[in-house]
């Protein structure tokens, strides 16, 4: 791929960049200042404060805060509930990401390449959950999973599969996957539409040419579609990792409250419980630091692992 590079001396000799009027930089800074101030007040300061508060013990209400250094982090090591919440977060992150991205890509490829008659209707139906509030989705799935009158158990009874019936939100082995299914249902349509828009912009001639060379549909998908939508895939994957951590909290909070017996607790819901219910604000912020570090590290590694030279077409 051809790239044009300016020689290092060009800008110094004044050939490349035109001369700036005096006061130009000051005007740009003045334009940027409101946004920078808002960013500092509402993003930078609270983030720094989370790190600072993790070094204190504080109930959240009393005026006296006691500096304890890394004591909160030492307590985390002995906290089984924290370990369980971490394990649940990793499980949801892996399973939901793999299923959502895999199904989203597959459905997008089917709907783009196979000219289905009901394509627009299916796209509309699959996109609806993304428009709904997460709390509404939680209510819908709570009704579906209801032990006695829920849609799922009623359907199983109807087809004589009574032994398959579960207490979907009350069984410690099943509850996390019940929440996971709701997460997949909520985000699948959005990512499918996102990939469909990328796939629609790929020129048809590329597929025609590869078809003449004898490439199968799967070969076309992996050799043409995937490389050409890679930048979109990479961005959405990085964003999805961060949003999955947040979405799991909202759904767990609305559907199970972390139960039964903390078996569906995730890191963010455990942090919320400690900081705002258990009056251990400092300890909650220590969990927040771990969440920040984990999300940041996974997103960074994912971004590095998927880095690629963009293709032009």
């Amino acid at each position, binding site marked *: 791929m051809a790239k044009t590079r300016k020689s290092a001396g060009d800008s110094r000799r004044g050939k490349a960049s035109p001369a700036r009027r005096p006061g130009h930089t000051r005007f740009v800074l003045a334009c940027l200042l409101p946004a920078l101030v808002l960013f500092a007040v509402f993003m930078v300061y609270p983030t720094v404060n989370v790190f600072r508060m993790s070094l204190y013990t504080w109930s959240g209400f009393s005026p006296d805060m006691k500096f304890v250094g890394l004591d909160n982090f030492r307590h985390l090591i002995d906290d089984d509930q924290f370990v369980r919440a971490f*394990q649940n977060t*990793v*499980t949801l*992150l*892996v399973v939901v990401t793999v299923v959502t991205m895999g199904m989203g890509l597959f459905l997008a490829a089917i709907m783009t390449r196979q000219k289905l008659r009901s394509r627009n209707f299916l796209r509309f139906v699959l996109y609806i959950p993304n428009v709904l509030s997460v709390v509404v989705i939680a209510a819908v799935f709570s009704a579906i999973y209801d032990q006695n009158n829920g849609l799922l158990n009623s359907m199983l009874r109807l087809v004589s599969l009574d032994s398959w019936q579960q207490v979907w939100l009350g069984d410690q082995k099943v509850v996390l996957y019940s929440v996971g299914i709701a997460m997949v249902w909520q985000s699948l349509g959005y990512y499918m539409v996102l990939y469909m828009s990328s796939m629609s912009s790929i020129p048809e001639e590329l597929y025609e040419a590869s078809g003449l060379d004898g490439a199968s549909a799967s070969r076309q998908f992996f050799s043409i579609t995937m490389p050409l939508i890679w930048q979109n895939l990479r961005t959405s994957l990085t964003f999805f990792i961060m949003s999955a951590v947040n979405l799991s909290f909202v759904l767990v909070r609305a559907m199970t409250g972390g139960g039964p017996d903390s078996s569906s607790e995730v890191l963010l819901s455990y942090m919320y419980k400690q900081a705002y219910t258990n009056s251990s604000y400092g300890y909650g912020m220590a969990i927040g630091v771990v969440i920040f570090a984990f999300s940041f590290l996974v997103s960074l590694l994912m971004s590095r*692992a*998927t880095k690629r030279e963009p293709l032009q077409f």
Partner: protein
Amino acid sequence: MKDSTRTALFVAVRTLVAAACVALVVVERRTIGWGHLGIMLLALAGLMALLASYNRRYQ
């Protein structure tokens, strides 16, 4: 070994490793403990390494 056979073998191995990593995460979740969490994080790292190895050809 033919090129097509080697490619098919690579794809099969990658798919198996990815499935094993996901299965490892699901199985290790059943027991609470730092060791089990460590294995889960290793499985997550394995999935990302797999993605990086697939992506290396295109960099």
